[in-house]
């Protein structure tokens, strides 16, 4: 069982969380009308085989969004941080 450490609640089974995709992509400014930038942000993925930084939401716990380091080639889970700490960075 994959275990994820929630910054609020501590270590829990991954089934309490919902995956929310790649967290490494910079989101365009909300006022931006650059369609290409929005397309790339929403639809394109690096999808690396190795270290990956991704969003998860603790839906069956505190419901906070977090950013998790995980290796997609091994599923070894690293550190997690509240998503708001890195929002827009």
């Amino acid at each position: 069982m994959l275990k994820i450490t929630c910054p609020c609640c501590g270590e829990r089974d991954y089934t309490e969380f919902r995956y929310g995709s790649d967290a490494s992509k910079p989101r365009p400014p909300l006022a931006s009308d650059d369609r290409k930038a929005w397309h790339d942000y929403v639809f394109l993925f690096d999808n690396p085989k190795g270290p990956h930084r991704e969003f998860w939401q603790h839906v069956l716990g505190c419901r906070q969004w977090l950013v998790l380091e995980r290796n997609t080639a091994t599923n070894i889970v690293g550190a997690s941080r509240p998503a708001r700490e890195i929002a827009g960075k």
Partner: protein
Amino acid sequence: MLRLVMLRPAHRPAGLPRLSNRYSVFSLARHALSPDKPWPRAWRSPEPKSSYDVIIVGGGGHGLATAYYLAANHGITNVAVIERSYIGSGNVGRNTTIIRSNYMLGGNTAFFEHSLKLWEGLSHTLNFNAMVSHRGQVVLAHSPSQLDVQSRRGNIMRLNGIDAELLDRGEVMKTLPYLDYSPEARFPIWGALLQRRAGTVRHDAVAWGYARAASNLGVDIIENCEVTGFVVQDGRVSGVETSRGRILAEKTGIAVAGHSSHVAAMAGLRIPIESHVLQAFVSEPIKPLVHHVVSFGAELFYLSQSDKGGLVFGGHIDGFNTYTQRGQFPKVQSVAECAVSLIPCVSRLRLLRHWGGIMDMTPDGSPFIGRTPLRNFYFNGGWCYQGFKATPASGWCFAHTIAHDEEHEFNRDFRLDRFEAGREMDEHGSGNWTYKQ
């Protein structure tokens, strides 16, 4: 045909490979009578040449089918299929073997129906018994509104010339007597949509059959040769770098679903795909019970029975991206719950085998077959759950696209740039989430 079979090796015309022998009752008898001579390899194992007209990266079902149709339909025989491992080692041998064409969206119906038609004649086309079994697929409805939705799907299929029949509860009870029809059933059965031409195919035979047929037409199948890069100059791809050296090609296509992002990135492309693991299961063998492919309506779950007697079933992806070919246990539990909810009598069966395969998941659940931003470079991938049933049409369309540098009518909606054009192919209506398709 008969003459070829009866030819002795010494009299075989020069240049005609030994492997051009057709499989037939005569060749079977000949080998039965001379047990000291083993059957020859089904396809040649050549050294790679320095250049080809077309290189296909990926020796799975789709890559081999592409090579076969390039040779058979377009006369392009100077083709190499480059496979990192051995033929049959990837998803073509790791799926649940189901074929069907019960799609609703315009771009999908014609494509998947074309695929089903190619399946129907495949064993004869390839001279290889793919054990195509049209046992029918029954998609269950568990509420009146779900039955309405099934009825709409069936109607759209029929308008597209695809067979579909709506079954009421009584007809489902007669067809599938082992389901849970009790008053306590958590998901009561109101009816179902049946496609009789749907069914199963022996998946290994598909890989072997296409490999042998392509090889007989002159295609070089190069196993244990990993592509490590592409030769790219001025926006044009002119070959591949491999673990066995550089091989040049006029045109290059990739068909490596599961690792599409990984391979496309070698050519500098970012594509709309995330890789997810999908688990599949086989129970211990039992006497014939399930004579169709049965799809649950309350969850993504489907089940059939193999010729060896094992129940073959699968569910949804685990839900997060990974390249590890192993699944998480909670999904094993939820899939088993679906099985028992639908067919209570299987509750004491033991699982014999269980495995995970890596899927290219796309934001809209539909695949890509087409040109790329790089010239002479073509992409086939993003198959989500639909790769196996699409194998013949995928190869057929990809071969056309490569030969003519243009998409065929059947795959024109599977373009890599469809999201930029606002032309999502969202068959399930589940939105732009790779992990929800």
